Structure formats: C-alpha cells, structure tokens
C-alpha cells in the first residue's frame, strides 16, 4: 500500500537523520546533538503516523482502537521531543529536570497504557492453569527488580518527593507495560501476538533507556546513547504498526502455540541468572536481591512445569485424536466395503431381473408379434418384432456389463473374454491368457471389475490397437495384469478414467491387495493388481448352468 510505503520511508529517513547526528556527536561536530534530537523526535512522529495509519486499516475493532491510542502516545512523545529540542536549542545548555517537555512525555504514558490494554485478547487463555500464581510471582519479581534498579538509586541520589516519583514514573510505566505484554505472551492471551510482541520489545527498550536516562541524568552523566535507545524503541513501535495483521502467519503456523511462553520463560531465566551474577560480582547479596532472584526462579520453574504438563496433555490428545482418526478410517473402509458389496448385489439382482423377466417377456412378445405378422401379413408387425429383438440384444450387452452370468458359471478368464468382445468389435485385438482356476466369488468379482475398468480405459483410448490380460496365482495371491498399447494415461488424470482408476485402487486396497498403474504418455498403459486369496482354491472351472 502506497501510504504504508510513504510512512515507512519517513520512519527510516528519520532514523537516518538521528544516526547522522549521533555520528556527528561522537566525532565532536558542533550542533550534532540538535540533529540527534530532531532525528529521534521525527522518528517518534513517524511512529505515530504508522500507528494512526494502522488504526485506519480494516481489522479488528479493538486493534484499531489500540493503534489509535498508541499513535496518540507516540505523538505526545514527539511533541515532548519538539519542546525538548527547542529548549535545548534556545538555552544552549541542558535544561534542568523536570523539563517543559515532560508535559508531552507524561501525557504519553496513560495513552500508552490504554493502547496496550485495548489490544484484542483471547477470552479464555490456554494457560489458565497456575496463571494467578504466575502473575503474583511475576509482579513481585518486577516490583523488587524495579526497586533495586530504578527507585533505590533515585533515593540514594538524594532526589525525593514529587520529582523522584515523576522520574521513576517513566521507566516504571514503560517497563510495566512491556511486562504486561510479556505476561500476555506467556499466557497466550494476545490475539495477533506478533505485532504486540514487537511493540513490547520497543517498550522494553524505551523503559530500559529511560531508567538509564533518569539515573544517569540525576548524577550528571547524561549520555548520547540514550537517544539511540529512544530511536530504536520508536522504530520498533512504528514497524509493529506497519506489519500486516496476523504477522508472522507462516512462522506461527510452523511453531507450536506455546513457543512465546517458552521464549518468555527462557528470557526470564536469563534475566534471573544475569541478575544473580551482577549482584555477586558487584556488592554481594542483599535480601531484596535474594527475594527477586528467588521469585524469578520459582516463576521459571512453574512455567517449565506448565509447559511440560501442557506438552504431555497435547501428546495424549494427539494419541487420542490419532486413534479416533484410525477408528474413523476403519469405519469408513468398512462402510466402503459394504457399499461396494451392496453395489455388486444390486448389479446381480438387476441382471437377474433383466434376464429372468425382461428378456423372457420381450422374447415372448417377439414370437407373438412374429406370429401375428405372418397370420395377418402385416409388415409393421414384423418390424415391431425386429425392434423387440434389437431391444433384447441391447439388454444382453447390459447384462454383461452388470454381472455376466458366465463369471459365476465359468470363472474369470471366460468372463473377461466375453467382456473383451466389445473391444474386438472396435478393432482392438485383445488376448486373454488361460486361467482355469476358480477362486472365491468376491475375489473373482473384484478381479473382474478391475479388469473390466482397465479394458474400458483401453476402449476409450483412440490410439489403442491391442491389449493383453494375464491372470496368475502366486503364493496365495491372484495377480492380474492388463497391458495395452495406445496413448497411455496421464499420471494426474482426473477425468472419468482417472476417477475410475482411483476407485479401482481403493477397492483393491480394501480387499487387502494392491493396484499399480504404470503409464507413460504415448507408450500405452500397464495395470497390475494383486488380491489375496484367503481360502484354499477349489477345483478347476465348472460348467455354466
């Protein structure tokens, strides 16, 4: 979108301005600090524009409200930055704390809190178990750490009263909101957690920088690194607003849903370890340190246990789901078997009715018409008798398609030979190798259907000139092969032929066998199937009744 590109470019250019000023300050160029101030202030303004732009995008209503407040917060920061830059430029020296720009900065804090609280959340957390204990532990740890790192140095520096609370409010609120986002990630409460996570990282940087700024400025060691922190923070918050909704979709789909919680837990562990090392290396242990580290470690332990518990539960659910899936597949396969059997029974019943009733009645009608035609010398009646004969012939063809009586009477090879007659009438030379054995009726019927389908494909191939059907027995298995010349089937053929091959494969698999198609376009088709024969073979083919 063009608007996003323009705003994004403004964000990058503003950051570049700050970078130029920062390099100028490091190299001792006069006035470079003003360029730095202008740069990070412009970055804050661009971040505000990014958030406002996101608030106008069609997305969840709460996300739009959140971005509106986050944009207002960044904008207030930018106004504060403008006031700061002007005061520094006019005074030619650092203004005393608190500055007039604090009006903008202070206004930004509640807007920031409202923005994050407005972010769309899940109603029910996947991490509800132990969440209250976790929240208490995390809040306690944050309070102790904040006291140790921010408020205690403030008090020790001699600052007190409203000034101390004011100075403390920046890092406290920013880090608190960053912590809130972190807790939301741990408990998987955020919808669209990718963008809020990036915002949270930006706030973490902002809070850390403000903590350093407040403490360092109070002891008179203001550093230019702080401006860099602010710039990075606002670039991150602006980037979060530019990211698409649901980002990062692919990444989220690839990793488990509790990954943010694992990452947050790992970060907590690292923080606890770093804290402990710092205290040990600098001044030894204090009571507050021990409490803070203890709380952090307990928090980490509870999170690890919870993740493990959830993992175990999910594994159990996965096993249950797989079993249910297998059961459903078995039921489906059983249903398909029943369906196929019912289809065969239906075909057989229809064939019987056609043969025993329809063909007989038509035959009788034909004789009557022929007789009356002779008696009355009526050519029309003779024509009707011939028509009756044609209808009977059509039904005979249908009988072979439905269920050839010869299959039950004489077995596979004779039945296939009859089915091949249709191809021979179309000029296709079909050879059927002798197969004198009789096997179970179901297996015979299935094998016949597989060959029948294969021959139908051959018949539909205008390039086909010859085909061969081979049947054989091998270690309790009936093996069949239908090879043909012609154009061959495409591997991903989804036409009627392709679908019938899929059905054939499924039928063979349901019977415990297999069905292989080897086709090369232009080089014909080779179909091979194997069907198990569970019952010993009977004697050779009997005579049809």
């Amino acid at each position: 979108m063009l608007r996003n590109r323009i705003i994004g470019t403004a964000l990058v250019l503003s950051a570049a301005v700050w970078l130029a000023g920062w390099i100028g300050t490091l190299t001792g160029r006069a006035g470079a600090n003003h360029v730095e101030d202008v740069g990070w202030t412009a970055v804050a303004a661009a971040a505000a524009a990014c958030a406002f732009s996101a608030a106008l995008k069609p997305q969840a209503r709460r996300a739009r409200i959140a971005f509106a407040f986050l944009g207002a917060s960044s904008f207030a920061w930018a106004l504060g930055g403008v006031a700061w830059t002007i005061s520094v430029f006019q005074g030619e020296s650092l203004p005393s704390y608190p500055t007039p720009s604090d009006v903008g900065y202070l206004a930004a804090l509640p807007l920031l809190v409202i923005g994050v609280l407005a972010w769309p959340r899940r109603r029910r957390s996947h991490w509800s178990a132990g969440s209250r204990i976790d929240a208490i532990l995390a809040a306690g740890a944050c309070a102790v750490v904040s006291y140790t790192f921010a408020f205690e140095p403030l008090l020790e520096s001699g600052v007190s009263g409203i000034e101390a609370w004011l100075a403390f409010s920046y890092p406290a609120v920013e880090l608190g909101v960053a912590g809130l986002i972190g807790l939301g990630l741990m408990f998987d409460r955020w919808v669209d957690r990718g963008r809020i996570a990036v915002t949270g990282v930006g706030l973490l940087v902002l809070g850390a920088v403000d903590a350093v700024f407040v403490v360092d400025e109070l002891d008179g060691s203001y550093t230019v690194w702080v401006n860099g922190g602010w710039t990075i923070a606002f670039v991150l918050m602006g980037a979060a607003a530019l990211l698409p909704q649901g980002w990062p979709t692919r990444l989220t789909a690839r990793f488990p849903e509790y990954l943010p919680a694992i990452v947050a837990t790992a970060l907590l562990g690292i923080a606890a370890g770093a804290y402990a090392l710092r205290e040990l290396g600098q001044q030894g242990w204090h009571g507050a340190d021990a409490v803070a580290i203890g709380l952090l470690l307990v928090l980490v332990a509870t999170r690890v246990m919870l993740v493990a518990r959830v993992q175990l539960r999910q594994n159990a659910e996965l096993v249950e789901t797989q079993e249910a899936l297998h059961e459903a597949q078995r039921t489906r396969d059983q249903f398909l078997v029943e369906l196929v059997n019912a289809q065969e029974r239906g075909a057989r019943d229809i064939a019987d009715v056609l043969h025993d009733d329809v063909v007989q009645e038509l035959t009788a009608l034909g004789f009557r018409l022929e007789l009356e035609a002779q008696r009355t010398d009526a050519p029309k009646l003779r024509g009707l008798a011939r028509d009756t004969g044609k209808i009977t012939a059509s039904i005979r063809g249908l009988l072979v398609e439905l269920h050839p009586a010869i299959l039950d009477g004489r077995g596979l090879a004779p039945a296939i030979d009859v089915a091949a007659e249709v191809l021979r009438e179309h000029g296709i030379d079909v050879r059927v190798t002798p197969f004198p054995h009789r096997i179970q009726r179901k297996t015979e019927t299935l094998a016949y259907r597989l060959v029948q389908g294969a021959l139908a494909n051959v018949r539909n191939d205008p390039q086909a000139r010859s085909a061969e059907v081979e049947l054989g027995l091998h270690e309790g298995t009936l093996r069949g092969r239908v090879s043909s010349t012609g154009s061959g089937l495409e591997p991903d053929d989804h036409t009627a032929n392709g679908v019938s091959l899929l059905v054939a494969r499924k039928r063979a698999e349901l019977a415990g066998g297999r069905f292989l198609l080897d086709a090369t376009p232009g080089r014909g088709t080779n179909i091979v199937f194997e069907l198990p024969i569970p019952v010993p073979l009977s004697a050779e083919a009997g005579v049809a009744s």
Partner: protein
Amino acid sequence: MIRVVVVDDHPAVRLGLADFLDAQDGLEIVGQAENGAQAVELSRTTVPDVVVMDIRMPELDGIAATKLIKENRPETGVLLLTAYEEDELAVAGREAGADAFFLKGIFGAELVDRVREVNAA
C-alpha cells in the same frame, strides 16, 4: 413334418415359441416342457425330431438335458436357446451334443430355418 418339443421354464416364452413354430409349414409341436428333466422324459415318450430348449432352467439345465437326450437317442436334434452371447456356453453345449445355438431375441424365418437345418443334420 418335423416333430418339435419346446422346453423353457418361462411360460410366456414357451407358449409364444410353441405357437410360432406350430404355425410354420412343416413343423409340428408334439410337446412342451418347463425344465430339463421333463424334456428328457418327453423326448423318450414323444420321440421328437428336434428339441428346442433353453439353457438356464431349474432342476436340470439345458446342457445337462442335451447330454441325456443325445445319450438316449443320438439322432434327436437339439437346438439350444440362450439369452447370453457367451462362447463358453456354446462350447459346453456342443460338448454335450447340441446341434445348434440360437439367441433369444431373433425371430422369424431365421429360427425356422435353423430348426430345419438341425432336423436335416
């Protein structure tokens, strides 16, 4: 006059066929049977020249009945009727001694000619 026995388990076919053949010059229906066993018995008692018989029938099918009729009196002509165009049935019928086959659904002079051919054979 060619003496003919008609055998078919379907009454309408049997009666239609018998009436049709009986109306043809030189043909006379001397008996009708509804299964193979009756056909064998009728062939003994009426001594027909030609038996026109369906293949698929209860109790005793047309092929088995053909074998018995031919064993009893080889000069009796047997013309088998079938609803199927299945060569294997023809082979089995010929092995049993049948003289000719005829598909149901073909009527008129062709059938009459076939009966006469069987009689002449």
